[in-house]
């Protein structure tokens, strides 16, 4: 690898750069959180707050790009991905080198040097193994070093976790370039054919290829679904031509038809059937008006309007599904279709000419217009999605969870025991390293040292019963034994 490139890649892979990028990502996310995302209707508030900005047009529309799809944010994610990739590469390489290095340290059983320390070695090995350390040996001229290691998987956990983050970023990228997201609002009885009709809203990635099979949706009915405590939602039933059967879609899980997912959207409401005829018998409008549901003052209001610019006409509708007359006005007691009532306001120019309430199956006269309200149906928004990136994302989440758990559970520790033979005596030097929890490891190392000392003293007393050795108090010895070898 080119030295300069390697130098820069090493810098990019450092934890310091990772720290800086994470902090930058967090700060930019905080800043971007103040901008509307398009996910929700926060634009009106935004317009009133930031009307002085050049991006806000006089008519209230905003020319802002989605902040999280802006080049600056994407560049930050790209740099973070490079940093992750470089970090994974160098750390994996280092781990392989470490493993190879460990193999150079021979297993104890194959070590001829062990004969020289045959009185000490077995005890050291026994103690290391007791504490879960895998012993390996390295010999020099005058000494033998036994390295006990445990918790090596922790580093692999870290590598796995960072790889998972990269997989997640890959999944998100795939979602943004190769997914399709759309929605359509249908009234009961209405049919939608993706080969013939167009979605109300659709957004496809640059590399999205639509499945060959057309998707046909027919909304059979929208049912209020009563929860245990009386909450309502909708079960929307769709018939797709690929299966041609009625399937309920519940709010918490969609269905898959023609290789696309169909979910119940957030919007739903009522569609009164309206017929507007002129005095000469010409039909100005005939069909279902899809009323928007607006949550105001703790109630759902169903409103919409029709405009006829050629006739300088604007007709407003307000619908009450369960109407009663109270305190001098009509209100709706519930969202159930019990006593549907429709308010029609006919406006010519700037003045309101007619405003009247009519029930289903009746008609109203407004000047030269006849407005009939024949029936009411429900409508529901359906979201149609095809996202190949989500499975990649899910894989990343699983890998990340395993990696993080490994990182949490495994702590890499090393105990290095050096045996030196000098002046017919064996001296023992014990050292240790731990990548985290140093205070706890110090206690562990002290316990190891005590155990080893105790076992070596025991051996000495057993082998040389005549030699005085160190006279350990019996109770102290038992206490140490109990602590060291539970």
């Amino acid at each position, binding site marked *: 690898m080119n030295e300069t490139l390697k130098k820069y890649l090493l810098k990019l892979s450092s934890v310091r750069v*990772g720290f800086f990028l*994470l*902090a930058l990502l967090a700060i930019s996310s905080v800043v971007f*959180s103040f901008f509307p995302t398009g996910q929700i209707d926060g634009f009106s508030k935004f317009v009133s707050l930031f009307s002085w900005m050049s991006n806000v047009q006089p008519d209230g529309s905003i020319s802002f790009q989605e902040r999280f799809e802006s080049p600056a944010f994407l560049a930050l994610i790209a740099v973070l991905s490079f940093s992750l990739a470089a970090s994974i590469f160098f750390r994996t390489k280092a781990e392989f080198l470490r493993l190879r290095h460990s193999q150079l340290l021979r297993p104890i059983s194959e070590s001829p040097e062990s004969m020289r320390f045959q009185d000490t070695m077995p005890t050291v090995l026994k103690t290391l193994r007791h504490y879960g350390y895998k012993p390996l040996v390295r010999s020099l001229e005058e000494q033998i070093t036994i390295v006990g290691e445990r918790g090596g998987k922790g580093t692999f956990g870290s590598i796995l976790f960072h790889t998972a983050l990269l997989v997640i970023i890959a999944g998100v990228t795939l979602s943004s370039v190769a997914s399709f997201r759309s929605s359509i609002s249908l009234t009961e009885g209405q049919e939608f054919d993706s080969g013939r009709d167009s979605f109300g809203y659709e957004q496809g990635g640059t590399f999205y290829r639509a499945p060959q099979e057309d998707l046909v949706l027919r909304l059979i009915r929208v049912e209020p679904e009563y929860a245990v405590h009386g909450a309502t*939602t909708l079960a929307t039933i769709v018939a797709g031509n690929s299966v041609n059967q009625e399937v309920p879609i519940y709010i918490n899980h969609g269905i898959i038809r023609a290789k696309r997912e169909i*979910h119940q959207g957030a919007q739903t409401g009522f569609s009164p059937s309206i017929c507007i005829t002129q005095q000469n018998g010409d039909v100005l409008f005939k069909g279902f008006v899809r009323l928007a549901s607006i949550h105001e003052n703790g109630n759902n209001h169903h409103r919409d309007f029709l405009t006829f610019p050629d006739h300088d006409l604007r007709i407003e509708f307000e619908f009450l599904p369960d109407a009663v007359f109270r305190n001098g006005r009509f209100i709706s007691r519930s969202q159930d279709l019990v006593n549907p009532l429709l308010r029609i306001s006919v406006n010519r120019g700037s003045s309101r000419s007619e405003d009247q309430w009519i029930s289903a199956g009746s008609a109203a006269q407004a000047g030269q217009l006849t407005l009939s309200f024949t029936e009411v149906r429900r409508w529901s928004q359906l979201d149609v999605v095809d996202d190949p990136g989500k499975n990649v994302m899910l894989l990343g989440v699983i890998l990340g969870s395993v990696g*993080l758990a490994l990182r949490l559970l495994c702590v890499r520790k090393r105990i290095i025991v050096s045996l030196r033979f000098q002046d017919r005596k064996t001296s023992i030097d014990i050292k240790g390293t731990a990548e985290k*929890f140093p*205070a706890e490891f110090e206690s562990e190392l002290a316990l190891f040292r005590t155990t080893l000392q105790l076992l070596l003293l025991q051996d000495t007393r057993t082998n040389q019963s005549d030699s005085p050795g160190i006279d350990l108090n019996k109770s102290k010895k038992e206490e140490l034994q109990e602590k060291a070898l539970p």
Partner: protein
Amino acid sequence: MSQTLLSIVFWLSTIAYAASFALFAMAAVFHRKRFLDLAVTVTWTGFLLHTAVITARWIQTGHPPFVSYFESMSASTWFGVAAFLLIQQKKEFLRVAGIGAMPLATILMGWAGTHPFGFEILPVGLQSFWLFIHASFAAAGVGCFIVAAGVGFFRLYKAHLNGRLDQIIESTDIQRYDEFNFRLVLLGFLFYGMMVASGAIWADLAWGRYWGWDPIELWSLITWLLYAVYLHVYFTWRGLRGRFLAWYSAIAVFVAGFSLWGVRFFYETIHTYGN
């Protein structure tokens, strides 16, 4: 159990948490071990009362206690106090960390109490077993962050007193507090990550998309990134492991709290509680 009785038991548990904080503070100020023992006993009492409230509500409503603001805050506090009691039982030197954890628990309980206490109807959109998984991880994650903040705060206090607390707790290397602070953050980071991941899976099942940059999602990501920064600092700058990270964890917990309960006051979001 009637709602009134439950409400009384809830406030009794809050009072017990407040009293335990006072006793922890008195133990630290007057260096009396008796106050410390009493503080732990009072915390246990409050915790048992709190557990009774949560269990009774769960049985009566038939859904896990994560649906309303009240339930979410109460459950997170419960996880935090449970984590504190568990670790102080195992590691006695961490008992005094209650001086940092209990005021947070008391404030959260008080804040929870300002929200409607009544049994919330579980909206159909939330009738999913993912609610239990997603919200449990959120509460467990914040619970860990609360105790980590408590440990961090106490570590700073202990360093400030320079060994004067050795009369009431065994003389412990201050590094042990840093280690526990790190362990709790790491565990909270794992739980919080699982919360984000399970939320993404649930969102995909319900809405057909796993991520939408909704303010709640965004602030959860920001919180997670903040704690990721903590972990990177821990592994990289050994010199910052003590005082700096103790301050960091004591402050970052407010961002975690904001992401769960504060975002709705400033942003419009599609994430809603039952009420």
